């Protein structure tokens, strides 16, 4: 069966996305302004812009994906840790003294470890703290100490192409944010489901939806169907968009296990393509209730299927079927015993990769010693 092109790009109701543009532009200007330069700048404007960008970012996280944020301690911790991480990452690339950069990076790593804890990865949080914030940073501070320079230097006070670099970074960021919003924002589907539900439950169909039948048509017993009203056409288009948005998840295989989901897509499609136009052209709106109920139920079901994390055998792209890497009867929840579960995964599914990583560490050690040793100049 040939499917219509997936219209991921046609779902945004806000084409300019000010929730994205405001933090990206303000943040880009702030970073560009605060980057080191030979001519000293006043830092106040940069900090003001940075505060504006952070406020815009918080707004994007709170509202950009629809109203999904739970009002819990977890949300407070998430905003605390991610705010710290972003602020200190910006400081890391803008301060002039490399030792301060290294210390700012420590704060970024520790905040990231907080985010890991929120994501149910306590072993990784501990490992990252020990390896990054401990070992690697101490090595960095040694190198900085060994290569300390007096006074202002080209290395710390100048930048290469700050305008182009900032533009490249923030264009990349804006693209990523737009993509995330397009994929994770379900507001248009929710609105379509609500719309269909309202119509299904309405006692009397709004006459704006029903095609008017002129008296002449009735007299002549014309068989030509009257055209759809603009409101009805818009409604049908909205339903089509919503279906295209959720059908990404619907399995296409015809095996018995998943046949019901396949059926749902076909039912909704049939209701949109045939049921709705016929019903809207009917003078009394007969059949509108049933069709709308079918659509609302089907869309809700498909959306649930799409959001169901880790549902196996789900088609997510035109070309491929996502298959679970591990064991198919694996539980969907993360196990509470994090360390032992990681160990089991490491030494069962990723054994070769573990060996390769060990070999890599060995080679890197040899390489570091070979590079750093002083060579005697031969006479």
């Amino acid at each position, binding site marked *: 069966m040939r499917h219509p092109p997936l219209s991921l790009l046609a779902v945004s109701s806000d084409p300019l996305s000010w929730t994205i543009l405001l933090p990206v532009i303000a943040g880009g200007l702030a970073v560009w302004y605060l*980057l080191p330069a030979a001519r000293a700048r006043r830092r106040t404007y940069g900090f003001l812009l940075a505060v504006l960008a952070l406020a815009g970012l918080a707004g994007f996280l709170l509202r950009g994906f629809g109203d999904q944020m739970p009002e819990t301690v977890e949300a407070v911790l998430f905003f605390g840790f991610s705010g710290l991480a972003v602020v200190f990452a910006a400081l890391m690339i803008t301060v002039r003294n490399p030792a301060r950069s290294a210390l700012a990076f420590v704060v970024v790593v520790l905040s990231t470890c907080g985010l890991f804890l929120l994501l149910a990865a306590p072993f990784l949080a501990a490992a990252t703290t020990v390896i*990054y914030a401990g070992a690697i940073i101490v090595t960095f501070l040694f190198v900085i100490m060994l290569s300390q320079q007096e006074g202002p230097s080209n290395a710390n*006070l100048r930048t290469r*192409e700050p305008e182009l670099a900032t533009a490249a*970074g*923030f264009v990349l960021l804006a693209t990523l944010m737009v993509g995330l919003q397009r994929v994770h924002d379900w507001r248009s589907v929710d609105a379509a489901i609500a719309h269909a539900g309202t119509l299904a439950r309405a006692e009397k169909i709004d006459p704006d939806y029903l095609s008017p039948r002129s008296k002449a048509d009735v007299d002549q017993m014309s068989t030509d169907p009257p055209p759809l009203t603009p409101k009805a056409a818009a409604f049908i288009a909205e339903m089509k968009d919503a279906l295209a948005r959720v059908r990404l998840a619907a399995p296409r295989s015809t095996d018995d296990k998943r046949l019901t989901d396949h059926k749902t897509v076909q039912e909704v499609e049939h209701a949109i393509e045939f049921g709705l136009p016929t019903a809207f052209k009917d003078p009394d709106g007969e059949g509108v209730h049933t069709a709308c109920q079918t659509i609302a139920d089907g869309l809700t079901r498909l959306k649930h299927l799409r959001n169901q994390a880790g549902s196996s055998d789900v088609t997510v792209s035109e070309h491929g079927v996502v298959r679970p890497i591990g064991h198919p009867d694996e539980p969907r929840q993360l196990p509470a015993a994090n360390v032992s579960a990681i160990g089991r995964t490491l030494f069962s599914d990723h054994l070769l990769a573990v060996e390769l990583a060990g070999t890599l*560490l060995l080679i890197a050690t040899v390489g*570091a010693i070979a590079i750093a040793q002083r060579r005697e100049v031969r006479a």
Partner: protein
Amino acid sequence: MIPASHYLTVGAILFALGVIGFLSRRNLIVMFLSAELMLQGVAINLVAFSRHHGNLHGQVFTLFVIAVAACEAGVALALFLMLYRRKRSLDVSLWQALREPGMPETTDTEPMPPVKPEEPLPKLQPAGVEPEREEEREYV
């Protein structure tokens, strides 16, 4: 539970800031820290997907990322020490002889800010009575 999209946004921001730092800063150490910052953004992404899918493969990948980053740090810091010994500076532009053939040389036009003269150390006035010194006698 906070949706995965929020964590992905934070990871994207860290990655973008790392890109900017790597492209624009000239101190070798800060460039390398920016690369590590990009890896942190990727690590957040992987762990968030691990939580989203309910299996541990994302966390395992993050472990490998940490291992590779540790190797990278060891080799790169050794390399920086060697480069510093040659040129007595960590400025990456000093090595621009390695650039592609045909590219123009970049020169710094803007003058450096004037170096502030260091304030002289304060001199203390000697106070009190100077004690009498005994002449050293020779006993040899």
